[in-house]
């Protein structure tokens, strides 16, 4: 087995007494696409925020490339090579698309000229090169999702966390999103996707970790996950049972 890029050891987090994550352990292999799935309230977002440094877990350890990162904060996590997008799009609306991505590129370079060159490259990867000088607020919703990805990519992550990047898109838009995710992985970047849209996610991911009520319910390949009776009861059952 290849070296893990990310390891979670018994990660726990509670908010004012309510447990969001309980004793969660798993590892992410370098180069894979891992799906983090589960019904609403399963604890996906808080786990995601713990990995990206936005929140500090109460217990357990998170290792990125062998080094502990819990408690370092989002800035240090990004500097070390963990990029993230937001479920609710958070573009810098007073800036153009290119300027948005340049903010990310400045994580690695000092000069605006270099940041611009890198940002333009990333925009081309994300299919937004034609929109470089458009104000961010004027983008369509799927374009805004791409901008989120482009901005995170500009920080040159080795691990990219995508928060519900495909949710709320039309099937065509979602397929374009899938192609983008594959293109990013082809650049050697490991990806963790939090997602609700099972139909699109399952063929895309190498492995899935299923959360339910804050605990890890199952872990395995998409084929294993969809046949796991507990997963069907907890997640697919809730969703499709009506």
């Amino acid at each position, binding site marked *: 087995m290849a070296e893990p890029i990310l390891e979670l050891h018994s990660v726990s987090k509670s908010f004012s007494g309510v447990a969001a994550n309980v004793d969660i352990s798993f590892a992410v292999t370098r180069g894979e696409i891992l799906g983090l799935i589960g019904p609403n309230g399963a604890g996906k977002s808080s786990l995601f925020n713990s990995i990206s440094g936005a929140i500090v877990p109460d217990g357990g350890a998170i290792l990125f490339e062998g080094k502990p990162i819990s408690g370092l904060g989002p800035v240090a996590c990004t500097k070390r090579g963990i990029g993230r997008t937001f479920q609710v799009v958070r573009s810098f*609306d007073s800036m153009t698309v290119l300027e948005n991505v340049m903010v990310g590129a400045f994580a690695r370079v000092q000069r605006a000229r270099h940041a*611009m060159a890198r940002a333009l490259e990333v925009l081309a990867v994300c299919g937004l090169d034609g929109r470089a000088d458009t104000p961010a607020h004027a983008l369509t919703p799927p374009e805004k999702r791409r901008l989120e990805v482009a901005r995170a990519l500009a920080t040159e992550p080795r691990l990219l966390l995508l928060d519900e990047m495909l949710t709320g898109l039309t099937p065509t838009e979602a397929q374009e999103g899938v192609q983008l995710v594959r293109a990013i992985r082809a650049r050697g970047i490991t990806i963790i996707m939090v997602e609700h849209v099972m139909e699109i996610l399952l063929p895309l991911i190498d492995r899935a970790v299923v959360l339910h009520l804050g605990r890890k319910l199952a872990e395995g390949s998409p084929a294993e996950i969809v046949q796991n009776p507990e997963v069907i009861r907890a997640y697919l059952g809730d969703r499709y049972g009506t």
Partner: protein
Amino acid sequence: MSLSLRPNAITKRRRRELLVGAVLLVLLALLPLPIGNVYLRGLIVLTLLYAGLAQGWNVLGGYCGQISLGHALYFGIGAYTSTILFTRFGIPPTLGLFVGSGLAALAALLVGWPSFRLSGHYYAIATLVIGLMAELLVQNWGFVNAAMGITIPFHAQSWLDLEFRVAVLPFHYVMLAYAAIAWIIAWLIEGSRWGFYWRAVKDDVEAAQSLAVRIFPSKMAAASISGAITGVGGALYAQYIGFIDPDSGFGLSLSVLIALPAVVGGVGTLWGPLIGAAVLIPLQQLSAAWLGGAGGGVDLMIYGALIVVLALARPQGLVSLFGVRSQAGGEVMDNG
């Protein structure tokens, strides 16, 4: 790499801004020459001063989104520092203004240290309260003549001391240089990493952090530069008027007057403070001159009403009239 050499909208826009700035500088340098009216010349001097002050405020309030209602503090520190150094120790104001500017920057850092941890409107309230406290302190501080203020005696005509027998025309160029330098600082900021970071902080703190933008140092950097620019303005003003007292140095109305041109002209824009000052300062001065004598503050009411009308008609600032980048839009619409 060939991509980086292609001049895109950003580089083109920045070149055009420099060109417009240079043309404007020449025009403003020539502006007072055909004007004989001393009052009118004085009005222009004041407008240029406020263009610089508002640009300084804009660095923190406009680009970084930290709304300060206490910028008179930095103005007052600059004014009092250079004035005291000059009147008590004979240090020329051209040197004293740098000391004042440095102390103003330091004060901005001291204000920011506790209050940048506050979010949203609390920063504005904190600066308001600190500004009021500073005014009270100076009013009761014997060393700086308390409420009496300090008069700067005239010695001799001197550029080093910024003292002139007929002050208006020399100060036209002093204030023009001040406004121009403030503008250039803002222009440089817009093209630098700090400028990008500050706008990111203003637009969305969480997203900025996720892109490795350190929020607190970003705000502190913006505050110190903003304070430094404002402090210089204070020192120049004191030298121009020849007198400084707690109200004209630290008053709340001054804090508002420093912020308003940027707000009305367009926050977070390069031209907003200049345009705002060009509209507001003559308006304020003329309404005070025509109506202020009647008492009852009719001038302030009219001034206030005009600001409300402007804010309603042009919420993105007057700068949007010119079709250049407005704060909300960030749009380039002036092709052709």
